[in-house]
């Protein structure tokens, strides 16, 4: 592609630079812009794996509709005691919410990260300006969005089918739920940061999941016996479940449980950042 206007002698550098890389922009993107690109990309890729979507979204709704369908007694209203005025289904809701915030946090998130690590995706990123906190943050955000969406779907469906009763203190329930999501994902990021192997991640995640459910009283119908309940207050999911129950069926503000979750979060998040390994 020569034109007559070109000089007779052309230095090699001139012609090759024309065919190599000119900058797309000068000046870095702002941190929020960069993070948004990361989250959008990771979310799009996440959605393409139908098996992860299929195993996270339907569970809360399946539990909330399925268990009372099997166990008809749950549909009766309590006439006396702590739960007076509420049905067994209402009492079950905090347990479902507790379960639904735990599985994505301690199983899906760490397993996904172990998979990235195993594949070398993280190592590839480690040679770039992308920081591990950004990658963790993006996946926490994606999983939190799915968690909340799944919980919302379950609540809407539960209400349509069984007619749920409003909690005594909605603000406390919402605040406790939010605190619970935060602390469980803080725990999940620690697991994602350190567990290297995908099968270890799955195994450890499952252990943590079940231990959390026990502490939340989900495994024992009627809740935990008093002694254990006292201990469970200091365990992340135990605190979250008790706080939600207090807001739903009680009349106070679960200050201790909320403080426990705050302290756990303040400890776990820096720990995850510090222990994070790319490979």
């Amino acid at each position, binding site marked *: 592609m020569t034109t007559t206007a070109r000089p007779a002698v052309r230095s090699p550098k001139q012609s*090759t630079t024309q065919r*190599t*890389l000119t900058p*797309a922009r000068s000046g870095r993107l702002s941190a929020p812009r960069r993070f948004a690109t*990361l989250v959008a*990309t990771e979310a799009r*890729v996440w959605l393409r794996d139908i098996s992860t979507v299929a195993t996270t979204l339907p569970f809360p709704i399946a539990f909330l509709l399925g268990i009372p369908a099997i166990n008809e007694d749950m549909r009766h209203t309590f006439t006396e005691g702590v739960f007076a005025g509420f049905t067994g289904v209402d009492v079950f809701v905090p347990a479902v919410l507790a379960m639904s915030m735990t599985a994505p946090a301690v199983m899906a998130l760490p397993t996904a990260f172990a998979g990235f690590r195993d594949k070398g995706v993280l*190592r590839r990123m480690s040679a770039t300006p992308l920081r591990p906190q950004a990658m963790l943050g993006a996946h926490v955000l994606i999983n939190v969005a799915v968690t909340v969406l799944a919980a919302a779907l379950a609540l809407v469906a539960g209400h349509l089918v069984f007619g749920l009763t409003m909690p005594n203190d909605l603000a406390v329930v919402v605040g406790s739920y939010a605190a619970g999501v935060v602390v469980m994902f803080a725990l999940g990021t620690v697991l994602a940061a350190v567990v290297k192997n995908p099968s270890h991640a799955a195994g450890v995640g499952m252990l943590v999941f079940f231990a959390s459910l026990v502490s939340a009283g989900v495994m024992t119908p009627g809740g935990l016996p008093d002694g254990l309940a006292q201990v469970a207050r200091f365990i992340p999911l135990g605190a979250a479940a008790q706080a939600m129950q207090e807001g739903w069926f009680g009349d106070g503000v679960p200050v201790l449980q909320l403080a426990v979750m705050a302290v756990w979060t303040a400890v776990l998040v820096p720990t995850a950042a510090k222990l994070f390994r790319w490979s």
Partner: protein
Amino acid sequence: MPTSVPGSGQPIIEVRNLRKTYGPKVAVDDVSFSVQPGEIFGILGTNGAGKSTTVECLAGLRTPDHGTVRVLGVDPQARPDVIRQHVGVQFQESALHDKITVREAVNLFASYYDEPADADQLLRLLSLTKHQDKHFAALSGGLKQRVSIALALVGRPKVAILDELTTALDPAARRQTWELVKRVRDAGVTVLLVTHFMDEAEYLCDRLVIIDAGVVVAAGTPRELTSALGEGTSLEDVFLAHTGFAYDAGTDTDAASDDLDDLDDVA
């Protein structure tokens, strides 16, 4: 090939007495070399010689146990932010999410850098334009390699580290890649080429080092090394001579088969 003048100006990479061990295993024993700006510098060696560990130390991905490393004037351990912005790395095992598209990967990596390349231009340069919407896992080995190169260059780096660049490529693609590397160098990028292909090193490298068992056993331009060994020798002969395979075409067959037995000891 432009001739290099050793010691002309500040080196862009300087490695002195680098040492890296993993427990009892010594990956890099004592490696020293320097790279001039704008040259294609080769790092040759057998598997396990310490090539990959050396470049990982340069890229700031590994902490040396001993020795000094300076890239673009800084210690990668002290200023990893500088290294990450200006050093592009093409890994041997390119790894991305299975279902990320080529375009998405390029855009994502581009977003990290202060002055990235234009994605369309980069894809065109690497003949990836018609593959840009394919998922990474669905690509052939050669295409994956080209994507990996694209990601190493998307930040418009000052230094590009290319590790086993043409392993999965057919001969035509290899030639194209070699020409691409030259164009990249001509645009002012210093290229560190880790390879075990002698023809590639001979064609592309201005200067090179041969690393064996964690130490530098030979250094210089391809021409210097071959003429030191003898008339009509190739870089392959130089490599074999320095890594313990002294096969002499004129000796008797017993000695030749002894040398072949030694092959079993090579990792």
